[in-house]
């Protein structure tokens, strides 16, 4: 019987399988460090390291297609509404993979050994699929037609009673109670070739009937069945028979090994994809317990240049502090450069991290750490944070910093977003400002979006002095009294004496270079 449909989870992407075994990219690990995502990932894992690993892997590999984001948002909506179903399914995959680990498989490659172990594995998967069917039967109708509902529907349709019965039949048949029966032809040197395994007989057929023996005796012809017995259980002879058996089992072993590989892939993939959603449910519960708001964000097309938030916060910091966070409002629609200046310890870095994390969560299809958040997707999120621990390098400090920045910029393209935190601080103020101006100008002209937290007052005021429509200036708020509120509000940077000179210097040199 030919069955339709192939069982794939397709919960993370509607049209492809995400390779969850691959480690996070080098770039991704940098993002994780700069945005300090550790507490967020720990809350998602809630003690399960697999969930933590998968969450990191998925979050650091942002989607850029709004349709794909919508698919995940839809699946997540169901999961948040039916946390028990997701968790039950996830637990089932985790149990199954654990049972599989207990069946020794290792480097077994001989056909008879593969079949021997394969029976045990198929038994494990048979149980799991039966359980999954029961789960699907119980819930499929109730949870809607989105990714998870569709998967359960596929399970109900494909893993039908007939398939489960056949699997049980193979588990029994592969024990070969009636001996292994193979057929063969004569190959090179008349050795057996093209061995094929006969389907195991339902019951043991009598080998030699009385009639047959009588017939051969009367006709003096060879009986239909002849027997060879290994003399005195001679070891080499017994081994030779085992070899014959193994050759007969080759194709079956191949089929069994492939079935086991395929089922292992299915359970691993399902386990991994569900892990992400279970992580989201865990995180939602943690944030809710803190009274930290969350919302389903609206993704916009790349070109729309939308970036708007109400009550935006850094979820990692909130989880670390264990308290409801201070939220910020920002309206940066149409802005390609956000400049953040102001006092130390005023929440600039936290704001930058919150913005980056919200963007990543949006593009992972998750909820956002804000009361409301909408943004254009970006083609890539990059960070350049001054790393204090990097100062003791063999190379000069500036040289090291610029090498790192240059490597990052090798990968940015149009509509990517670069988050800079105190970049160019490894040289003096004037030189740093000059470099920053040149780099930021080249980036914005190349359609790269930049968010820049800086102390370089020359750079900041030169940007402000340029009066570009695409620049949004923000400042860490400080009351008249000098008290910090940790809020980031709109406000121009302080002007410095040499800013205008600097601006003229760089821009004019750029114009000269263009002209030549």
């Amino acid at each position, binding site marked *: 019987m030919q069955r339709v449909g192939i069982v794939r989870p397709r919960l993370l992407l509607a049209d492809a399988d995400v390779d969850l075994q691959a480690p996070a990219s080098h770039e991704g690990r940098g993002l994780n460090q700069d945005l300090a995502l550790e507490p967020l990932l720990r809350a998602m894992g809630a003690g399960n390291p697999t969930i933590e690993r998968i969450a990191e892997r998925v979050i650091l590999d942002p989607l850029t297609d709004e349709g794909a984001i919508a698919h995940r948002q839809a699946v997540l909506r169901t999961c948040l509404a039916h946390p028990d179903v997701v968790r039950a399914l996830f637990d089932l995959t985790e149990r199954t993979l654990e049972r599989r680990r207990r069946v020794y498989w290792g480097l077994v490659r001989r056909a008879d050994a593969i079949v021997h172990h394969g029976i045990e594995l198929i038994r494990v998967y048979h149980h799991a699929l039966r359980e999954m069917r029961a789960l699907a039967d119980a819930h499929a109708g109730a949870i809607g037609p989105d990714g998870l509902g569709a998967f359960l529907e596929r399970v109900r349709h494909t893993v039908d009673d007939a398939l489960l019965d056949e699997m049980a039949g193979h588990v029994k048949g592969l024990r070969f109670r009636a001996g292994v029966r193979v057929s063969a032809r004569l190959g*090179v040197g008349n050795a057996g070739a093209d061995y094929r395994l006969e389907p195991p007989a339902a019951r043991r057929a009598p080998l030699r009937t009385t009639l047959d023996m009588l017939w051969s005796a009367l006709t003096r012809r060879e009986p239909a069945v002849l027997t*060879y017995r290994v003399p005195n259980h001679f070891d080499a002879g017994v081994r030779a028979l085992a070899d014959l058996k193994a050759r007969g089992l080759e194709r079956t072993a191949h089929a069994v090994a492939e079935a086991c590989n395929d089922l292992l892939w299915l359970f691993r993939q399902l386990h991994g994809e569900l892990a992400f959603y279970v992580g989201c449910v865990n995180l939602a519960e943690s944030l809710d317990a803190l009274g930290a708001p969350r919302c389903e964000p609206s993704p916009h097309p790349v070109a729309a240049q939308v970036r708007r938030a109400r009550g935006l916060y850094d979820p990692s910091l909130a989880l670390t502090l264990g308290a409801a966070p201070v939220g910020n409002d920002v309206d940066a629609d149409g802005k390609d450069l956000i400049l953040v200046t102001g006092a130390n310890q005023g929440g600039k870095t936290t704001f930058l991290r919150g913005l980056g994390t919200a963007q990543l969560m949006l593009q992972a299809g998750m909820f956002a750490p804000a009361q409301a958040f909408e943004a254009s997707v970006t083609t890539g999120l990059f960070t350049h944070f001054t790393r204090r621990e990097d100062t003791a390098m063999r190379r000069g400090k500036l040289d090291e910093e610029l090498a790192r920045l240059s490597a990052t910029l090798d990968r940015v393209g149009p509509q990517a977003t670069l988050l800079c935190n105190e970049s160019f601080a490894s040289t003096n103020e004037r*030189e740093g400002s000059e470099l920053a101006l040149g780099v930021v100008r080249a980036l914005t002209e190349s359609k790269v979006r930049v968010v820049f937290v800086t102390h370089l007052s020359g750079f900041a005021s030169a940007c402000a002095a340029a009066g570009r429509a695409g620049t949004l200036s923000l400042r860490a708020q400080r009351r008249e009294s000098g008290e910090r509120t940790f809020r980031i509000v709109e406000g121009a940077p302080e002007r410095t004496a040499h800013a205008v000179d600097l601006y003229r210097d760089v821009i004019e040199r750029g114009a000269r270079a263009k002209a030549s």
Partner: protein
Amino acid sequence: MPIDVSHRTEGAQGGGPSVLRRPGADTHPDATAPDTCRIDLHLDQVIDAVLVDDDLDGLRPHFHTLLRDPDDVAYRHEVFRDLADADLRDAIAAFARSLGRLRTRGRWTPRSRRPRRSQRLHLDAASLYCSAVLALAGALERRPPTSRALRAVADHMHEYVASQAFRTLDDDVRTLVRDLDAVAYALTIHEDRVHVRRASDRHDYGEDIERTFRPFRRADAPEALPERIEVTEMSEAEAAVLDLVARQHPATFAALERFVETHATFVEPLLDRFAHEVRFFLAYLEYTQRLAPLGLTFCLPTVSTADKRVEALGVFDVALADSLREDAGTVVCNDVRLDAGERVLVVTGANQGGKSTFARAFGQLHYLAALGCPVPARSARLPLCDAVLTHFERDEDLRTLQGRLGEELVRLGDLLERLGPRSVVVMNEAFASTATDDALALGRATLARILAADAIGVIVTFTDELASTDRRAASVVATVDPSDPSRRTFRIERRAADGRAHALAIAQAHGLTYEALRRRLTP
């Protein structure tokens, strides 16, 4: 282990036509060239590369023997011309390969430990032989050769294929192979015993399992391959099973036994010899074709025993070309000419200018021409030499007590001793260990001996005066191309260093100035 299927006479003088030697060519003995000349000319490397397969080693003597009669050379040239037809060449190559494989099959004897196995191997060898013969016979009909050598083979083949002996062999093989292929049997295997039945249904249970699990199959999933049990020898149990199968198919197996008795030997000796000898041509052609991607061509030279003029265009060093093949280097080709009255080329000029390479190529050209083979040149007209006498610098041999010059003089004495009117001399940087005046005197004396013997040759020397000694010695100068492509220049831009631009300079180095970054980010 060679199979006992023919009375093979290895590389031999046995009767019947040979593709390597013209019938009745034995009137004058050929010159076997000494090893030193092949080593000096790097032809040992070339011959090793041509005879790369172990079973070609029997052909080595033919690469050590120079042909003296232009008609012997023509006899081989004709074969090379026939083999320029790719269809014919492929057919002959396939035949040679098949007959070569018969040698590596097992030997059948009536006392074999596994008679049914040996009998079947014998049958399969006969089957391979019959198809090879029929395929070659067909090819020779479709593409009639024109060379004397291959025409003789074609005629012989035509007769042989029509002979009663071959027809019987071929019929017996076909019938028996068909009957044995039809045998199918089923085994029920237990730990220490096995039951054998005739089989009819040949369904594999693996297919059922594949069908069950198809819903989980992904097109891009990696394949899980179980280990294959490689069987080289037939086990006792397998042989016992085979005996039981034979009892169930008595007529077929009796026919197999009769077959090995009737056709104990079946390879026709002349064809066997042809299959071996023709690989001289095939192996050499295969080698020359390796160099074709470098744009290097071989040609069949015009040879003469009367005319001493040399005119060869696009000559190259074969061994050097072959070693440059992997790193795709360019091989320099030279034109070589000795006009009427000229006998020796005296090569002088810059070091590393390719002088030794030129001398080697000159020697290779004459040596390979005397094998009757295509030579490394675009076109060539040469005298047919009977010896290539070489004098190259040796690594100093500490056993000789005479010192370096003494050792050289001894070798040179031997060389001059063997000098004859049909010799080709290749001398490379002789007397380098002695003073210029002495070297010139020795060089002049040697040159005079060569000219007196009316031999031809090439002398590479560092004494320029040798080039103007005699009218019959033509001077050749190696030059170095001034626009040597191996010399690269890096443009150095000078710029005054000033402290203020330090950061900018570092940014520049990383491509992070405004201008540089714009360029980088513009697709």
